[in-house]
Structures are given as structure tokens and as C-alpha cells.
């Protein structure tokens, strides 16, 4: 890179998201217009944003989502299949070629809890994966997870147990346990 003062990609992302103060934005634009290297950096930030959008639209990101986020995707034409077993309950589930998103809704009382993990377990309780310290909004009564739909499509019959865990320095306790009994469509 030949730029003597390369712009930090995080700052370029702030610029792209219109989160820089006007004075900083103006100075950054002057730099970009005189700098091919930083122009390329900005392009790569925009490409990254576009890639993330594409992956989100394809439903292949395992992540915590919000009701508002899912509703926006649905309004944009995506089809969401949602399962909401009660705590301690089981739900039969599947996914079809017509679905774009696979959402698990885990109901729990999150009042007064600082940290929540989600453990994805097999029926014996052995953890396959753990989502640590998930983001959640105080006052909500459920956690929504987008399960990678590509994985679900490839899966044969399977039982997945999700556990919501409150984690403290003293240890952890189960807030709810939810069993997903998956059958291929």
C-alpha cells in the first residue's frame, strides 16, 4: 500500500453508514478522492457489506435475530418457517425448498439476567455447539435464533435440544430446554 495515511476500514465503515461527524466525513472524502488505495479499501468495505446482505438473505447465518429483523426480511419477500416450542416441550419440524429462513423461538423469562448462552445439544445432553453471551433485549420474553437453513436441508432425521442458560460467576442454570424433532421434507 502506497498511501502514507491509510484510512482505518472501521472508519470507512462508519463513513459508509453515515455515522461520521460532518467535518470528519468531508475530510475523509477529500482523502479518498486523492487516494486510490483508500478508494479500494472503501470498495472492499462495501463489498463486505454486500456479502453479508447476501448471506443474510440466503438464511445461512446461524445467529440471534430480533422479531423486527425477521419481519423486515419477510416483508422483502423471504419465507420464514418458525417453530416455538414451550420451555420443556418438543416440536416436530422440517424445512422445505420453499423456505428461506428457519427460526427457533425460545420462550423464557430473561428478567434480571446479565448473560445468556444457548447450548445446542443432542438428546443425551452432549453439547454440539454453544452460542456464548448472546445479545438480548431486557424485557423480551423469548430469544429468536436463525438456524442455518442449508444445514437443516442437509440433515436427516435428527433431534436437537436447545438450552437457554443463564450464566453468572457462580455457574449457570437452565432457563428453558426446547426439543426440535427434525424430519426431512
Amino acid at each position, binding site marked *: 500500500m502506497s498511501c502514507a495515511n491509510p484510512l482505518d*476500514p*472501521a472508519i470507512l*465503515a*462508519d*463513513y*459508509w*453508514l*453515515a*455515522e461520521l461527524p460532518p467535518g470528519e466525513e468531508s475530510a475523509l*472524502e*477529500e482523502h*479518498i*478522492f*486523492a487516494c486510490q488505495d483508500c*478508494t479500494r479499501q*472503501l*470498495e*472492499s*468495505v*462495501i*463489498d*463486505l*457489506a*454486500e*456479502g*453479508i*446482505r*447476501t*448471506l*443474510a438473505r440466503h438464511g*445461512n*447465518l*446461524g*445467529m*440471534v*435475530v*430480533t422479531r*423486527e*429483523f425477521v419481519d*423486515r426480511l419477510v416483508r422483502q419477500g423471504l419465507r420464514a418457517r418458525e417453530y416455538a416450542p414451550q420451555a420443556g416441550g418438543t416440536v416436530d419440524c422440517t424445512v422445505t425448498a420453499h423456505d428461506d429462513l428457519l427460526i427457533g423461538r425460545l420462550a423464557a423469562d430473561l428478567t434480571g439476567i446479565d448473560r445468556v448462552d444457548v447450548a445446542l445439544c443432542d438428546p443425551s445432553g452432549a453439547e454440539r455447539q454453544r*452460542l*456464548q*453471551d*448472546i*445479545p*438480548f*433485549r*431486557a424485557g*423480551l420474553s423469548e430469544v429468536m435464533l436463525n438456524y442455518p437453513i442449508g444445514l437443516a436441508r442437509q440433515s436427516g432425521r435428527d433431534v436437537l435440544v436447545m438450552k437457554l442458560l443463564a450464566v453468572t460467576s457462580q455457574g449457570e442454570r437452565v432457563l428453558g430446554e426446547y426439543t426440535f424433532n427434525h424430519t426431512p421434507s
Partner: protein
Amino acid sequence: MAPRIRLYGLRHLRDEQAAADLVQQVLMMTIESMRAGKVRDLAKIESFVLGTCRMVVLEIRRGGARRERLLEQYLPPVSAFPEPAPDLDKLAECLGRLAERERSVVVMTFYEEHSSETVARALGLSSENVRVIRHRALGRLRKCISGGNA
């Protein structure tokens, strides 16, 4: 210069076609200005082009008819810049390596280009925290994509 004008257009107009139109219009106005001897110092051509971009975008925002008139007069709109295809498999792998908060923040941020304030409200975080998480996550993503560990 055209890629820089396009990026400026994408950032301020949020539309690929509008950005492509802006490129054509600004380049055309720059050439016209040079022909008319209005650009005296070629070493400062970038500043001139940036100033023209700002002026044109302002006009577009004000709903001015100049853009349409000039485009009709001189050039048909074309998409001159094919989109590069990001390596989605690698990007998905790298997103999967992020911490849960980082992944939710970057996806919810970039999916609809939400401000840190909006994402913060959705996820129960402070907007300053969202910015810190976003900065850290972008650094890790870029490192991972370029071949290092996230």
C-alpha cells in the same frame, strides 16, 4: 476517478443506477469545465471533481431537473461497473467465527445499513458499545478473509 465518483454516489444516493448516472454527469461536467478553461490547476483535479460531486448530489436531493436534462442531452445511462463477487463461503465461515454479539451486530448493521443507535435499541446494547463491537468485528472479519485467524 470514476470509481471514486461511483463510491461517493453509492454512499450519498444509496442506489447503483443513480451512482452510475452521477459518474457520467460529473465526468461530463469536468470535461466541459476543462474545455472551457475553468480548471486551471490540473494538480487539483480531485478537489474539483469532489466539489462537483457534492454540488450534483445536492441538486439531486433538491429534486433539481438539471441531472435529468444533462443526461438526456449527452449520455444514455449505462451500468459501467460490474459488481465484484465476494467469496461468500469464506465470508460465511469467517462470520461463523465471530462472537454472537459481533455476528448479530454486523449482520443487523449491514443488512439494512442501520445506524448504531437502531441496532443498539434492537439488541439491548448502548450505541457506543455497538460501534466498538462493529469495529472489532470488522477487523476480525477482514483478517479472517485475508487468510489470518479471526
